[in-house]
C-alpha cells in the first residue's frame, strides 16, 4: 500500500498527541510525587519530633529502657516497621549505643523482619510495608527484591547482630552482588570469629574466578577489620600455590598489623598476639617468595616481629633486586628500634629509584636527631647529585630549614653551617630566604649576610638588596650595602 500524505498526517498527529499526553503525564507524576513525598516527610518529621528524643535518651541511657521501648511500641500504622527502621537507624550508633540499639530492634521485632527478608521469606509485615512505603510495590518485583535483602543485611550489620552471622554468611552466595557486598561488610562489622574462614574462602574464590561480580577490595576491607588473632585463619592462604592469594593474604595481615601498631606504642608481634606459625612463614618463606609483591608486603610484618632474625631479613630485603621491595623494606625500618640500622638505610639514599631515596630520607628523619645527623652527614659526603637533591627536598618538606638556620646562627654551627652552605651552592635558597625575611634574629641575618651575601644566587641577591634598602637596623643595612656593591660588580663582570 503506498504511503499517502494523509497517512503521514495521521502518523504525525498521533505522535504529537502521544507526546503531548506523555508530557502531561510526566508533569502530573512530578507534581503528585512531590505532594506525596511532602506528606510522607511531614509524617516522618512529626514522628521524628515525637519519638526521636525518646530514642536519643534511651541510647544515652538517660531514659529507662523499658519505658522507652513501651513508648516506641505505640507507633502503629501500615508502615510501622519502615518508620521504626528510619527512626532507629537514622544516625550511625556509637560503640556504646550499639548494644542498646540491638536490643531495641530485637524487642520491636525489626530483627526478625530483617532476618526473614534476608533469607528471602515473605512475612506479613513485609507485605504490609510493601504496600505502605512509596516504592513498596516495586520492591516486590522479583528482580528488585535484592534491594530489601541488601538493606536487611546492612541493618543487621549496623546493630552488629551476632546471631545473624550464619544468615549473612549464606548471603555471600546471594544471586545479587549488592547483597553479597553488604553481607561482607556486615560480617566485618559483627566480627564473629567463625565468619573469618568463609570470608577468606570467598576472597580466594574471587581471585580464582575473575568473573565473580564482587570486588576484591570489598572482601579485603572486611578481612582487614578483624582482630590480629584471626590472622591464623590465613595460614593456608600464605602457603597457597597461587601467587595472588599469597599476596593478598600477606597484605591483609600487613594492614591488620599496621592498624594495631598505630594504636599501641612500642607494639611488638610476639607469640602472645601473633601465631608463632605465621611468624615462621613470614621469616622463612614469604621474605624469599618468588612474587616480589609478597616480599614487599611481608617486610612491614617482619619489622614488628620480636625475633632476632627480623633485622637481617629486612637488611636482605633492603638489597632486593626489585625497587618496590627495597621501598617497602626502607619504610618498614622506620621504627626507633631500628635506629642502629641508620647507616644501612642511609646507603639507600643513593638508590637508583627516587621513591626509595625519598623513603630512606623520610625513614632517617623518623629517627629524630640521630637520623637527621646521619642524613646531614650523607648529604655532605655524597657526590651523588640525585641523592643530594632528594635530601634537600625532604629537608624542606619536613620544615627543617628554620631549625638548621637557627643552629647555624648559634655559637658553634658545625654541620648545620655546612648543610646550609651546601644548600646555597645547590641553589636551594627559596626556603632559606623566606626564613631570613621573616626572622628577627639579627645575629643570624648578619652571619648569613657576611658568609653568603656575595653569592650570585638571585634569591639571595634579592634579599641582600632588600636589606640594603629597607632594613631598619642601620648596621645591618650598611653591611648589606657593602656586601652588595662588589657583588653587583662581580655580576656585571
Amino acid at each position, binding site marked *: 500500500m503506498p504511503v499517502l500524505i494523509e497517512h503521514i498526517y495521521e502518523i504525525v498527529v498521533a505522535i504529537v498527541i502521544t507526546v503531548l499526553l506523555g508530557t502531561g503525564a510526566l*508533569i502530573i507524576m512530578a507534581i503528585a510525587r512531590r505532594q506525596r513525598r511532602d506528606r510522607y516527610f511531614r509524617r516522618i518529621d512529626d514522628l521524628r519530633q515525637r519519638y526521636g528524643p525518646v530514642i536519643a535518651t534511651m541510647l544515652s541511657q538517660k531514659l529507662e529502657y523499658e519505658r522507652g521501648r513501651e513508648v516506641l511500641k505505640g507507633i502503629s500504622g501500615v508502615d510501622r516497621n519502615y518508620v521504626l527502621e528510619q527512626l532507629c537507624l537514622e544516625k550511625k550508633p556509637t560503640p556504646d549505643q550499639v548494644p542498646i540499639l540491638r536490643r531495641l530492634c530485637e524487642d520491636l521485632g525489626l530483627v526478625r523482619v530483617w532476618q526473614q527478608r534476608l533469607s528471602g521469606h515473605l512475612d506479613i509485615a513485609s507485605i504490609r510495608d510493601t504496600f505502605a512505603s512509596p*516504592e513498596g510495590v516495586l520492591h516486590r518485583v522479583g528482580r528488585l527484591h535484592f534491594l530489601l535483602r541488601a538493606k536487611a543485611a546492612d541493618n543487621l550489620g549496623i546493630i552488629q547482630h551476632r546471631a545473624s552471622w550464619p544468615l549473612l554468611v549464606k548471603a555471600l552466595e546471594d544471586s545479587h552482588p549488592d547483597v553479597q557486598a553488604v553481607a561482607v561488610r556486615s560480617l566485618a562489622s559483627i566480627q564473629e570469629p567463625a565468619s573469618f574462614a568463609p570470608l577468606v574462602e570467598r576472597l580466594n574464590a574471587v581471585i580464582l574466578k575473575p568473573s565473580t561480580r564482587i*570486588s576484591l577490595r570489598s572482601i579485603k*576491607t572486611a578481612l582487614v577489620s578483624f582482630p590480629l588473632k584471626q590472622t591464623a585463619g590465613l595460614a593456608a592462604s600464605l602457603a597457597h600455590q597461587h601467587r595472588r592469594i599469597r599476596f593478598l593474604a600477606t597484605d591483609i595481615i600487613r594492614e591488620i598489623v599496621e592498624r594495631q601498631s598505630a594504636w599501641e606504642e612500642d607494639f611488638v608481634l610476639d607469640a602472645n598476639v601473633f601465631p608463632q606459625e605465621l611468624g615462621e612463614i613470614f621469616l622463612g618463606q614469604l621474605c624469599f617468595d618468588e612474587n616480589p609483591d609478597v616480599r614487599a608486603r611481608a617486610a612491614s610484618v617482619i619489622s614488628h616481629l620480636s625475633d632476632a632474625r627480623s633485622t637481617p631479613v629486612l637488611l636482605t630485603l633492603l638489597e632486593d633486586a626489585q625497587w618496590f621491595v627495597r621501598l617497602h623494606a626502607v619504610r618498614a625500618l622506620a621504627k626507633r628500634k631500628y635506629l642502629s640500622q641508620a647507616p644501612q638505610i642511609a646507603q639507600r639514599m643513593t638508590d637508583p629509584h*627516587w621513591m626509595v631515596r625519598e623513603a630512606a630520607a623520610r625513614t632517617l628523619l623518623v629517627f629524630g636527631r640521630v637520623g637527621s645527623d646521619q642524613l646531614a652527614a650523607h648529604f655532605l659526603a655524597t657526590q651523588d647529585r640525585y641523592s643530594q*637533591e632528594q635530601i634537600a627536598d625532604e629537608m624542606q618538606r619536613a620544615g627543617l630549614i628554620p631549625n638548621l638556620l637557627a643552629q647555624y646562627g648559634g655559637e658553634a654551627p658545625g654541620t648545620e653551617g655546612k648543610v646550609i652552605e651546601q644548600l646555597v651552592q645547590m*641553589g636551594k*635558597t627559596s626556603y632559606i630566604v623566606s626564613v631570613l625575611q621573616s626572622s628577627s634574629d639579627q645575629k643570624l641575618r648578619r652571619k648569613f649576610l657576611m658568609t653568603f651575601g656575595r653569592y650570585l644566587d638571585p634569591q639571595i641577591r634579592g634579599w641582600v638588596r632588600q636589606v640594603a634598602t629597607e632594613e631598619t637596623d642601620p648596621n645591618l643595612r650598611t653591611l648589606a650595602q657593602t656586601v652588595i656593591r662588589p657583588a653587583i660588580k662581580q655580576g656585571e663582570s
Partner: protein
Amino acid sequence: MEEWRQVFYHAMNMFNVVIVSYFFMANGMYTILMILSLGSVWLHNRRLTYQGLDELRESAVTPPATILVPAWNEQDVIVESVRSILRTDYPALEVIVIDDGSTDESMDRLIAAFRLVKMDLIYRPRLATKAVKGFYMNPRLPNLLVISKENGGKPDALNVGINMCRTPYFCTLDADCILERDALLRLMRPIVRSPENTVASGGIVRILNGCEVKDGKVVSVGLPKTAVERFQVVEYLRSFLFGRTGWDLLGGTLIVSGAFAVFHRETVMEAGGFLHDTVTEDMDLIVQIHRWATHHKRKIKMKFTSDPVCWTECPAQVTMLGRQRRRWQMGLCQTLWKSSEMLFNGKYGTIGMLSFPFHLYVEALGSVVEFLGYFMVPLALLFGMVPVPLFILFVVLSLVYGSFLSVGAVLLEELTYRRYPGFRDLVILLIYAILENIGYRQLVLLYRVQGVVRFITGFRSWEKVTHVGAG
C-alpha cells in the same frame, strides 16, 4: 533553467529527508536514554540506602587521592575554595593547587592565607609542561601544595599537577566549584567497589546560581533569578541525569566533566595526559584513554554516578553563555575529528559503534542540520514543496518533543534527589522545561553552530567566561 530548478527541488527534498531522519534519530536516542536513566537513577538512588560510606571512610584499603585545582586569575574565590577543599571528607587526601601564571593576586592571597613558603622541590616532568616557577608549602599543612607556573592553559596546569601527584588517583576540580563534603568519597565508591578496572569516575555538576553559600559550603539550595540561568538548570539536569547516566548504562561514556572527575593517575600518564590541541581537555582525555586502552588491549571501565555533587556557577549573561557553548561545541568537534578512526570501529565496542556516531552526528553535526532546518524548511514551504499543515505539525512536534524530554529530566530529579525543596521550585522547573524549547534552545543552537564554524575555520583561542559571583 528548468534543470537548475530540478536540482534545487531535488536538493530541498533531500534536505527534508535528512532533517526528518535527524529529528527521529536524535529524539529516538534521547528517549531511549531517558527511559534507561529513569530506571537506572531510581535504582541507584535506592541502592544508596545501603551504600556504606562510613566503611569507605574508615577503611585502610581506600586508596589515597589528590585533588588537583588548576587556577587562573581566581583571586576572589581561590582561598575560600582551597579551605573548602581541605575540609573534604576523605581519609587520605592531598590537595595540589596549580596557579597557571595568574596576573592577579591569586598567589599572594594563597601564600598569606595558608602561610606558605617557597621551596625548591624536585620536579619530575613525565608529562611535558611549561616551566614551573615555584613550589609553595607549609610544613604544618603537608597535604597542601601550591605550584606557580608559567601560563600554559588548563591542560598544562593539570599535567603539572599530575607530575607532582603521588597518589594512585587524582580528582580534577575547577577553582570556582564547590564540592559537597562527601562528594569525593562517593566518586571513589565505584572505583573501590567495582570488580573491574575503573579508571575514571565522574559525578554530577549542579548549578550554584541561586543557592546560599556559607564558609565554602552550600547551605540552602534554590533556583536562580534570571531565565537564562533557570534554563541552564533544566539543561544540566537533562544532560547529567539522563544523558550521562544513559550512556553509562550502555557502556558508552564519552564525556566526563573535567570540572569534577576522578582519574587513575598511571592510566592518564600512559595515555599521554591532558593534551593541548583541543579546548575541551576533559572529553579529549576520555577519548584518548579509550583509544590507548584499545590499542594496548587493556580492559577498563569509566563510570558516571549521579550522587556525588559538585556545584558550579553557570553564566548569568547571554554573552558569557555564548562563549561557553562555542567553546564546548568547538572542543567536541576537535576531539571527534582527531579520533575519527573510532567511528563505527567495532574494536571500540559501544563507544565506536554507538556513542561516537551519536556524538558526531547528533551532538556535533546535528546542530548544523537543525540550524539549517530553520531556514530550509520554511523555504520548502515557500516553494510549495511541503504542505502547510504538515509543516505546522512538524514544528509543533519538535517543540513538544523537546519539552517532553526536558520535563522527563525534571521528573527524574523529582523521583530521586529532589535537591530543589520548594513546591514553587518544582513548578518553575516544569515551566522552564516547557519554555526551554522556545527561544533558549534556538539561542544555544546558534552558539553551537558558531562553535562548529570556528572549528572549521581553525579558530583556536579560549574565550574566558567570567562569573558574577553566584551564591
